[in-house]
Every structure is written in C-alpha cells, then in structure tokens.
C-alpha cells in the first residue's frame, strides 16, 4: 500500500517535470519576457489550446485545466473578445471535419461560458482539417491537430 502510494507520487513528479520542461521550451522559443495581460502572456502562461481524442469533442481533463486558466485570465483582462478556432486531424473527410471542428470549438465555448465568461464575448470558427499545426502525418501530429484554439481579438 505504502509502496504503491510512493510510486504514484514519483509518477506524478515525472509528469510534472515533463510538463514544466515543455513549458520552458515554449517560453524560450518565444520572447523572454511577456507583459501580464498581453497575448503573449495568454499563450505562454495560460495556454491557448486544448486537445481532443479522435472523432471526439468531449473536453478532456487536461483541457479542463487549460480552460479553467483561460476563464480566470479572461475574467481578469476583460478587454479581449475571443474567437475559438476548432480544428481536426487529416483522418476525416473535409466536410465532416468542418462540422467536427465547429463542434469542438463550441464545446470549448460552452465550457468557458459555464465558468462565467459572457457568451457574447466568445465567437467560434471551424477550420476543419484545412489549417494543420503542426504539419505532419503521424499520430503525434494528429493528436496536436485535434484542437480548439482560443484566439484573443
């Protein structure tokens, strides 16, 4: 029992380490300092995107954490209207993916509304599979492409 708990703690620490190193990479790739309340602050310190499972539009646990941070930030900096872009991987047909992207963008929008962001502040737009980021045809690229990105206007 005790051993199991210890293992669980170690696992959690490893995960945290992986997360923080990824954030550091993102931060060092962008400008070194960002102004609080700026677009750069939002992207680096809050996270502008959430990811989805294949053919799904359910907000995952990692996505909920990101959207919670987004809601807090948007409540603090109320001057930004936002557009949530919904995207898909390339493993679907063009028209269906336009609809699926819309569904994903709307799922993120509804989550932010539930956290108290006014509905009138959040628009959605779907890009289906037309705007991949990153460009790639492997599982890792597809996982990053199944996304909803909150863009500050």
């Amino acid at each position, binding site marked *: 029992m005790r051993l199991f708990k210890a293992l669980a703690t170690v696992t959690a620490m490893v995960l945290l380490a992986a997360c923080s190193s990824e954030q550091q990479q993102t931060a060092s790739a962008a400008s070194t300092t960002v102004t609080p309340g700026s677009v750069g602050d939002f992207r680096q310190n809050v996270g502008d995107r959430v990811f989805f499972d294949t053919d799904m539009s359910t907000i995952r646990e990692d996505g909920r954490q990101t959207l919670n941070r987004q809601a807090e930030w948007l409540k603090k900096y109320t001057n930004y209207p936002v557009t949530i872009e919904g995207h898909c991987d390339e493993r679907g047909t063009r028209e269906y993916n336009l609809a699926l992207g*819309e*569904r994903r963008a709307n799922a993120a*929008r509804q989550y932010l509304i539930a956290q108290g962001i006014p509905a009138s502040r959040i628009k959605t*737009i779907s890009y289906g599979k037309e705007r991949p980021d990153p*460009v790639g045809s492997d599982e890792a690229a597809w996982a990053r492409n199944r996304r909803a990105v909150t863009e500050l206007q």
Partner: protein
Amino acid sequence: MITKSNPMLPRRLTILGGAALAAGAAAPARAQLTIDMTRPTFEPVPIAIVDFSGDRVGAQIAEVIRNDLQNCGLFRSISPSAFIQRDIDAHSAPRFPDWRSIGAAGLVVGQVQSGGGNIKVDFRLWDVVVGQQATGLSFNSQPGNWRRLAHIIADAIYKRVTGEDGYFDTRVAYVSESGPGNARVKRIAIMDQDGANNRYITDGRTIALTPRFSPTLQEIVYMAYGEDRGPPRVYLQSVDSSRRELLGNFPGMSFAPRFSPDGTKVVMSISADGNSDLYEMDVRGRALRRLTNTPAIDTSPCYSNDGSQIVFNSDRGGSQQLYVMGAGGGGERRISFGEGRYATPVWSPRGDYIAFTKIGAGGFGIGVMRTDGSGERLLASGFLVEGPTWAPNGRVLMFFRGNPSSGGRTGSVGLFQIDITGRFERQVPTPGDASDPAWSPLIPQ
C-alpha cells in the same frame, strides 16, 4: 456556361447528323469495334486516328481525340508512325488491308474547313474489321471552339463503340492548393476534363472549398471563408464572372452545398451552437427549409438523380454512416453497414450507384454501392483518397488522392479518375496540387 448568348460561342454548334456523312448501308453493331465495359475482362479497342486534313488545327484536333480515348482506358491509340496508308482521304473509303495489318479495329479520319470566322469539321469512324463506316458527323462552330469539337467527336466515337454516352465534352471544378501546409492557399479553379483551359474563379485571399456545378454549368456553389473571421458561408457564382452572391446570411457556418438536379434548389449544412443540420434553399426565392433536426453531424448531402431523395452522412448512430431520406426530409434510413466510417456519398447521374469515401483503420477508400446499400465494392484506396464525383455517364469517377506530409512539408495532392470496374486509374493533369473535384454535366451544345 455555354449558351447562345455566351461570347465564347454566339452560335449553337450545328450538328448536321450522322446521315449527312452516311456511306453505304447502315451498319449494325460490329464484333470488334464494340466493347461491353461492364464485362470483367476485355481488351482495349485498337484505334487509328489520322491527323484531320485541310487545316493546321486538324493535327491538334486528332491529338485531343487520341488523348481522350487513350486516357479512358477502353481504347488503345495506335501510334501514327505505324500507319501504312499515308494518302488517306476523309471522304473516300480507306484501304482496309493497310489498317487491318497494323491491328486497327477502328479508323478515324476527318477534314477541317475554316474561313469567314467559321470552322467546319467532318469526321468518319470506319469499322476496319467489317470494312464499313460506323458513324460520321459534321460540325460548324467558331474556330476557337476546336477543342470542344474534338471532345464532341471523341464522345461520338465512345458512344458508337461502348453504347454509353461519352464524357469528354465536360469541365471539372476543383480546389487548387498552393503554399505551405499551415497557411495553404485554396482557391476554386475550373478546367476542361482533360486539364486544358485552366482558370481560377476565386482569388485565394481566403480559403474556398467544395465547388459544385449547377446542372446548366452556368453557376457554381462553394464555401468560402470571410476576410473578417466571420463564419465560412456558401456562395453562388457565375462561372463567367467574379461576381458572387451570398446564399443566405446565417449566424453560423453554412457549408457542403450541392444543387438539385433541376437547379432550383441547393441543399447544404448549417451549424448552430456547434451542431450541423441539413437545409434546402430555393435558389430564386431564397426560402429556407429545414430537412434534419438531430444533435448529430448531418452533412455532405447529395440529391438522387431524379431529385426525389437525398443521401448524406451522419454520426447519429455513433459513427459517420450513410443515410437516405426523402428530398423534403423525413424517413431517414441507414444504408451503410460495413466496417469503418462512410462519407461524401454521391448519387450516380444514372441512378444505379452511390459512390462514397470510406475511412478504415488502414486508410481511406473510394467505393460504390447500390442505392439501397447492397453490393459494396472498393475501387481505390490509399493514405488519403476522398471526394468522388461522377462523370455524366455514371461510368467513371474522379476523386482526390493525397500523400502523407513529412518533415513539415505538406504531402502532394492531386486529381485521379477511375472507371467503376476499378480497372483504369489515372492522374488528371492540373497545374499544381488539386483536391475536391466536381465533374460537370455534358456542356450544352
């Protein structure tokens, strides 16, 4: 697109008819100059097409005909360098032994007369095996229409040999793609079926997708993004101008448009609060009618050839599958039951098949099934094959085929055609990357 008032073609093509060039007795069907393309195996018909005499454009006309017939997979065009009879005349009988000895079953000869802003083209198809004329026609038009005349002649030969209507005098609208993968320029282009006369209909400043022809070819509908980050919407545009109209101004995205067979309506998806349902709009009056009302994704609708039904894909049962309903909505029934997801159904213009995209664990496929969902056959497969569209004779499909991206570089994507037996697949030439083809009906003569 082509009308009496079109400056490209102020006068109708005058077809003087087969009787005008009849020589000898009416010939019944021949053993070797006919082909049953539904049979599981057959040899392509060897055919010799001589440069048309009388004008320099005659050689170009013959080359367009050779290209059409060779590329459809049903003919083998014999190289002109093998021809023995060099003194052939468009109006007298050929020396049949000379053509039999090079293996020709069919022989095409023709003559061009131009002058006074007019071009007159006569052609004859000789049945070399029997030694008789199989068909002969004469056309009048403007000189600038010589390519169309060549395609019309190729259609006449195809029809005489296969018993099916041809599809060479047609156009293809498609999405031209260029630039890096994360900022790809996607604009609508239109070209002749053989890749000639390519031109762009949208300017590429915003993404434009899913072009579809009206039955008269005068107009296309497509979806385009706005420049203001507003939702993408459906536009109606004349193919001869850059003038376009918004087809309904809805708060949500409108997409996946397609004309009804009579051209009076457009069926499309409209999304609201993240959910996409099907609607039908009257093109003239712009009245909107809701066809589906489910919490599922309902999209990629296509009318049946007689306009009485609509096939579409929906994930209402948990995964993307094909459904058929009445054209006014209601009575939806699922028709796809194989493994994997089914998408982009298109009803054959002759009403016998529905073509579709299939998405399985291993990749994508293009297939056909009967309209009740039975008799499913896959014709093409690959990493990405998507978006079939029918030739007007319902015997050939065009679709797009994409390659995987690697090293941050977008994989190439291009147009391909395949006959419904799945025997002949070939790439359709385009100036650059191309996706999402829409095959036009035969151009009105």
